[in-house]
């Protein structure tokens, strides 16, 4: 029962239960299915609000902890707990899912029951990843989440959906199987040193590992997370998946899934293997900056709006990685805030592209133009979101980017300077797209009859706008909750692991053990 009383655990389990419950509704009663899905996702959001209100911003410990033995022979516990970083990520997830449900009402016409079930299962998986304090539980959610996402892209996606879905699944799975081997290794090493099996993440922090072991283990974890972020050159699955996914799928992919990669670095890769992390950090930050420049340049050359937004994600996540790898309070908290910002603004951009696509069934920039005349409401929303995405002061994007750049400048001056170029580039292509779509003459007759945003569309865009402005002018409530967690992360990244006892000799290879 405790599993359902603890609000954190309830946030994880409720979407899964709701996802099963939807099968009680007959498959052809569309209205009931939509209403149920919306109500369920709103209920999850309401539960997750209790995490926000009950969260002690000053405490640096894991909160809402739950620890239930699950598979005792391996020391696996169903252990959950959140700090400020996971809190923001969970709220971002539970906030975006109802909006995605609302945005799918007209777009999804086939097999609606399975569709909403997939969305809810996906939500459970995502929240679980952010809430897990046990490596096994983390890995379980991390992989389990692939199944609903795979179906979302593959069944309800665009014309090349099968290719995109397979690529997404195989890329991310192939990236993470080595992490499984690394997890087993870490746990076995801990068992050899401490004599007990445990998968508890805090217990494994800075274990007694040799430098060489740390190197390989970090590499295995970093690969899994780099695919998810995605860091250049592991990003090639992203444009396909984002473009082919249905609108809600793109929102969740960009809004939440990519954050799981960065979160993995913050929660696992760096604190588990601090020495190796310090060695790798400049390279990862460098790849982040390459991603900023490369993503921006490729986005600039796109004619398809959705592709452009997809590549802009590569650039934005590059900024986040630069901040996360700087191990500097301002930069890291900026990176965390930027994760939220990117979720809000890119989510909104995908929703807006979806709005256009539902009306005209094209996403090419040149098929539009002059929309300001026929869709003034749309143009205004699009403006705010675009400006948030390019980091205009007063909107959310600015705070995050500025913190990351200022903070990382102290650590990586050259990389940070190069990253500034990316910020300028993003203004060029985003504003360029905005201008071509919204301003100018109405070149296409089909566009003259386009309807402006209707009530449902306002309903799912308005909450995003509220937070885009709110974080822009008043970021303190968010930053205040993140800072203790960020300090923790930096402390953990600096700690020297205990020297490995001489007795602990775990062979890296079967050869030696035989």
């Amino acid at each position: 029962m405790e599993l359902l009383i603890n609000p954190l655990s309830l946030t994880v389990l409720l979407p899964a239960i709701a996802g099963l419950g939807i099968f009680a509704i007959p498959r052809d009663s569309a209205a009931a299915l939509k209403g149920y899905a919306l109500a369920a996702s709103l209920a999850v959001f309401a539960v997750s609000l209790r995490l926000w209100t009950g969260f002690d911003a000053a405490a640096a410990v894991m909160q809402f902890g739950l620890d239930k033995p699950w598979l005792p022979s391996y020391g696996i516990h169903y252990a959950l707990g959140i700090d400020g970083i996971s809190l923001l990520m969970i709220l971002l997830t539970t906030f975006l899912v109802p909006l995605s449900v609302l945005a799918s009402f007209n777009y999804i016409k086939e097999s609606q029951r399975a569709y909403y079930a997939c969305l809810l299962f996906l939500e459970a998986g995502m929240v679980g990843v952010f809430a897990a304090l046990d490596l096994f539980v983390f890995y379980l959610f991390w992989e389990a989440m692939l199944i609903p996402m795979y179906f979302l892209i593959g069944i309800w996606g665009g014309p090349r959906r099968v290719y995109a879905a397979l690529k997404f699944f195989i890329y991310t799975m192939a990236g993470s199987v080595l992490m499984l081997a690394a997890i087993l290794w870490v746990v076995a090493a801990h068992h050899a040193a401490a004599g007990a099996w445990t998968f508890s993440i805090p217990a494994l922090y800075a274990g007694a590992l040799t430098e060489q072991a740390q190197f390989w283990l970090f590499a295995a974890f970093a690969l899994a997370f780099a695919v998810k972020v995605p860091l250049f050159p592991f990003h090639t699955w992203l444009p396909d998946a984002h473009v082919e996914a249905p609108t809600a799928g793109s929102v969740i992919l960009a809004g939440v899934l990519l954050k799981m990669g960065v979160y993995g670095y913050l929660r696992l890769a760096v604190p588990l293997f601090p020495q190796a992390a310090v060695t790798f950090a400049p390279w990862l930050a460098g790849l982040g900056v390459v991603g900023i420049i490369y993503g921006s340049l490729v986005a600039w050359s796109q004619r398809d709006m959705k592709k452009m937004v997809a590549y802009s994600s590569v650039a934005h996540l590059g900024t986040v990685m630069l901040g996360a790898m700087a191990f500097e309070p301002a930069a890291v908290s900026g990176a965390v805030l930027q994760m939220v910002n990117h979720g809000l603004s890119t989510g909104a951009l995908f929703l807006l592209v979806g709005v256009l696509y539902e009306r005209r069934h094209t996403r090419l920039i040149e098929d539009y133009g002059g929309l300001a005349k026929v869709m003034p409401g749309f143009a205004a929303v699009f403006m705010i979101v675009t400006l948030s995405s390019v980091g205009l002061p007063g909107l959310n994007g600015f705070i995050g980017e500025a913190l990351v750049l200022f903070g990382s400048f102290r650590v990586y001056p050259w990389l940070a300077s190069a990253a500034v170029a990316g910020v300028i580039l993003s203004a060029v292509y985003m504003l360029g797209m905005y201008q071509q779509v919204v301003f100018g003459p109405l070149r296409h007759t089909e566009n003259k009859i386009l309807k402006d945003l209707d009530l449902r569309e306002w309903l799912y865009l308005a909450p995003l706008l509220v937070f885009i402005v709110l974080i822009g002018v008043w970021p303190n409530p968010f930053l205040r909750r993140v800072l203790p967690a960020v300090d923790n992360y930096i402390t953990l990244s600096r700690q020297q692991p205990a020297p490995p006892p001489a007795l602990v000799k775990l062979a890296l290879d079967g050869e030696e053990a035989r």
Partner: protein
Amino acid sequence: MTFDPVPYAASALAGPLLLTLAAFAVLLLPLFFKTLRGTQGLVSLGAVLVTLVFFRAAPPAQLAFFSGALNLSPLSAYLWAFAMGVLALFIALSLARPAAPAEHEGEYYFLASMATIGLMVMMAAGDLFTAFIALELLSLPVYALAGIRRSKPGLEAAYKYFMLGAFGSGMTVLGIAVLNALYPSLDFVSLKAALPAQPLALAGFLLVISGFAFKTALVPFHMWVPDAYEGAPTQVSAFMGAAVKAGGVVLLWRLFSLFDGGPVREIFWWLTVVTAVFANLAALAQNGLKRLLAYSSIAHAGYIAVAFFGGTRGWEAVLYYLPVYAMATIGAFGVTLILERDEKGPKIDDLAGLGRTRPWLAAAMAAFMFSLAGVPPLAGFFAKFYAFAGAVASGYTSLVVIAVLMSAVSIYYYLRVTVVMYMKVPANGEDHPAGAPGLAEAVVFLMAAGVLLAGLFSRPLLALAAEAARWF
């Protein structure tokens, strides 16, 4: 020991005895009483269910019977329950879709029961002679079952299976002969005590191991598998995948654990790697569903062999792996059986549109595929996790790295099935008419529930496996 061994032995042995009696009854009685014809399947199923009554919690002790030929312990109880379960599912599938012509029904169930008794003896065998006799008792009926339809694909399957199987048996016998000349006794305990051995003994062991590797389908002893699985009646393929393989696994595991190191382990290491790599790569090229499942079964033999390297944890993992793998495989063959229109079974592409026409069946099939691929939260993931955890803890990280990389490769072919079911339209507009749900569907959905729940709630099954593994 406070318990009385006699009633325990009586109840434990009553199961196989009853099964034998029932087997002869279904073979012979219908010859004399015409009214009994057509009831053979039900009688066999009933017999299996009654034998389950004779199963009771095994006392925590090992009892040796027939001068050590049979060892009864919680381990054998676990494996016997597994064998009975597989037989019950096999009979249920055969009742739903008869595999044998009506006049051969009696033989069909007789052979299946005999094979299961062979399997049970093999699992509890205390020495190599018994194991070999049990192996033959298991194999010969299955050769016949593969060809029971006397159709071309069936006969081809039976023939190939028999030729290669006989070759494997020959190697085993030769190996046993060599070992018999060198060692005073061939029971596993004294063999373990008598080691290490001279090169000739090594040759003997390798011969015996290759013989059992045939049954387990480790590469390069797998050649019979794809053709036999494809040509045999689908129910029989399911039985081969779940039961025959399990027998081979248990025996290989006993042989493996005789050695603490040295060349035999080295050879096992290579067998495991070659199996995992080859089977997964070959599976990528398959178009027939039954052939795909055949290669998948070879690949899983490889993963199970990884668990061998994990010491006590590994034994536990193997015991957990066997039922989990069997559930997914029997379920997948069950779906194949429901959809098949000819003996070779459907091509993968024939599943197109299944997600639309028969959503629940497709969902079950997807669960089996994801479980075989080892994606959480399905049971297959937990099985692989346990199998690999032990091997890593014992220092065989490179083996596990190869195995996880190959299981990433396997994602592609398992996903292909789900792609076809959910994301492709049937080429010729053919639909899958939803027949009235029957026994076959019941088996499929039971197995689907199994792979969904046995992972997340793996504690009871794992505890049973751990208890059984202690008696190895």
